[in-house]
């Protein structure tokens, strides 16, 4: 059913950009940074032709606040950056979570900390994606491992953002975003595209932060007579600042719980040879590609290796992970940092050893690089 025109040969930045267009992105604000700039440049050529607005702001702080404002003005809004820019967005990621603005942030991870190596890969932003801002709030992070997934998951990121009114982070990495691959650009109705719930009551009756049963409040749009006040302070259903224990507790719990109760639309992972795996690897993003190669070669030699690849990193499908690990003797987490996803896997798996295989190379590790680190457990 796929026509020639639906196939692209794209890197993951361009694939994500195409996914955003399919999802209906109509506002983008960004600031250049390697390796995210070519996503911005790609959209800068395309969005205006489709009626969208795309601008380069003075910094990433302006970019994130602009997309939050645009989101409340009814736009499907996004930005893309890398670690240093993501760090600058910290305060307003919490703002987006607090005022329940649907936004998508793409973080093309590069080597850190600080300026690190701008032109080298890394996966050091796993915890940053979860806990970037102060206070307690819910957030979703998805990690593709191919250009096809970059396309598909960007659509999914927008869908989750719109349905749950949360910021959604797409965690990509330097290798992915510079690797061109075949991508099938699926369009509706083959893919679903969701939009936020709008108020079903007239302005006089509307309470902007009163949730429905799914814990998500319908969202009014600026300029439509609802006179809605978007409050960064702790607020009640009206959006009014109040300093009451019950209001604070209900709000903070709901900001996280709305993701938990709707996790069926978020959780996502892929398993390879896990049924009888004795050695279970856990890896995500481009690193998982090298690990998958290890697992396949091992299987060819009769070794019972398997791979659990989380796609939703935050939250991770921990039930599925536990199940995949049922027959395993050892679990090995391979990631390009010094132990971040490991902390989550180690938290979940309590009855068997979980090892960290930190890969601190500047390029995509070869299967041999990884095997060298893991040899002592194999």
């Amino acid at each position: 059913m796929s026509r020639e025109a639906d196939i692209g040969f794209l890197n993951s930045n361009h694939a994500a950009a195409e996914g955003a267009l399919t999802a209906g992105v109509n506002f983008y604000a960004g600031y250049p940074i390697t390796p995210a700039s070519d996503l911005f440049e790609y959209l800068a050529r395309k969005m205006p032709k489709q009626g969208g607005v795309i601008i380069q702001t003075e910094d990433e702080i302006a970019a994130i606040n602009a997309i939050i404002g645009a989101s409340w003005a009814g736009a499907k809004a996004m930005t893309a950056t890398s670690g240093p820019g993501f760090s600058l967005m910290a305060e307003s990621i919490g703002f987006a979570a607090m005022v329940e603005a649907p936004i998508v942030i793409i973080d093309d991870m590069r080597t850190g900390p600080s300026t690190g190596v701008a032109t080298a890969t890394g996966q050091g932003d796993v915890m940053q994606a979860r806990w970037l801002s102060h206070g307690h709030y819910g957030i979703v992070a998805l990690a593709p491992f191919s250009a096809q997934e970059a396309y598909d998951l960007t659509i999914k990121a927008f869908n989750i953002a719109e349905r749950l009114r949360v910021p959604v982070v797409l965690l990509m990495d330097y290798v992915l975003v510079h690797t061109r691959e075949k991508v099938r650009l699926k369009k509706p109705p083959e893919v679903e595209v969701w939009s936020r719930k709008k108020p079903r009551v007239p302005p006089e009756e509307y309470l902007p932060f009163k949730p429905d049963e799914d814990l998500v409040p319908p969202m009014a749009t600026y300029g439509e007579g609802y006179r809605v006040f978007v409050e960064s302070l702790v607020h009640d259903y009206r959006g009014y600042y109040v300093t009451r224990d019950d209001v604070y507790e209900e709000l903070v719990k709901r900001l996280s719980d709305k993701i938990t109760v709707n996790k069926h639309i978020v959780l996502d992972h892929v398993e390879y040879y896990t049924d009888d795996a004795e050695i279970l690897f856990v890896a995500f993003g481009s690193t998982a590609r090298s690990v998958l190669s290890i697992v396949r070669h091992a299987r060819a030699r009769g070794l019972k290796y398997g791979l659990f690849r989380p796609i939703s990193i935050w939250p991770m499908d921990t039930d599925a992970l536990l199940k995949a690990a049922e027959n395993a003797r050892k679990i090995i987490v391979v990631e390009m940092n010094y132990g971040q996803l490991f902390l989550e896997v180690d938290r979940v798996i309590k009855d068997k050893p979980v090892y960290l295989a930190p890969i601190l190379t500047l390029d995509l590790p070869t299967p041999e690089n990884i095997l060298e680190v893991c040899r002592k457990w194999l």
Partner: protein
Amino acid sequence: MAVAKRPIIHPVDKYLRTERLPHVWCPGCGIGITLHAFMRAVKELEDEGRIDSSKILFVSGIGCTGRAAGYVNFDGAHTPHGRAIPYAMGAKLARPDLIPVVFSGDGDLVGIGGNHFIHAARRNMDVLVILVNNMIYALTGGQVAPTTPKGTYTTTTPFGNPDRPINAVKIAAAAGANYIARWAVTHPELLKNSIKKALPMEGFRLIEVVSICPEIFGRHIGFRAPIELYRRLQKVVKIRGKISPFEATYDWEKEIILGEFQVRNEPGYTRVLMEAFKHG
């Protein structure tokens, strides 16, 4: 928005979330005078059929001044400290029929948010910025602000402020704003007229309002009653017509010049951007 209905007893009550009163501002504070001038300007414009207040987007940052957004009955936001301008910009560009107003403090707008202020003016972004300059970080208890006069005691400069104060008017002018004025809470009628003129315009418009903070600024430097600080301000402000924004002195010891320093009608950023995209 669902609010408890109260009888309208003041002409601008319809622009207020009256159920939220009383407000947090101290007796003698200049923020109320400024906000009142704004609401009167909106009322006159709306009564004349020149504006639809349901299109106003009233955005504040953090600070005493920033609390204004929560009291007015417009679409609005109370954004993180310093981020009102980019937030308003995003909303306006996504929905060009909005009329964005940023109403915030001097620390918020030209301290922590200074970069956004410069670049919004440079782009001639469509936003009316009402900068309430009380010369101090008030909400946090009296620390030095970028607008604090040199030599002044504040809680973080107990031996006198070593910094020279910023002149927001000159910065806006250098960056290229369409409309630039400075008024003071001593002249609320002129302030109201200026807001009324600037609100329907496009592009970047700055109205700086030299305000008084008797509790957190005045008292710390020896003004025991609000009226004393008010009289001190009255003495130092001078209205001058037809002078360049670069001559608009801001000097608490010598003179603070009030007036309308720039009135241009260059196309606002929203229009420029939409034009550029048409050729895409």
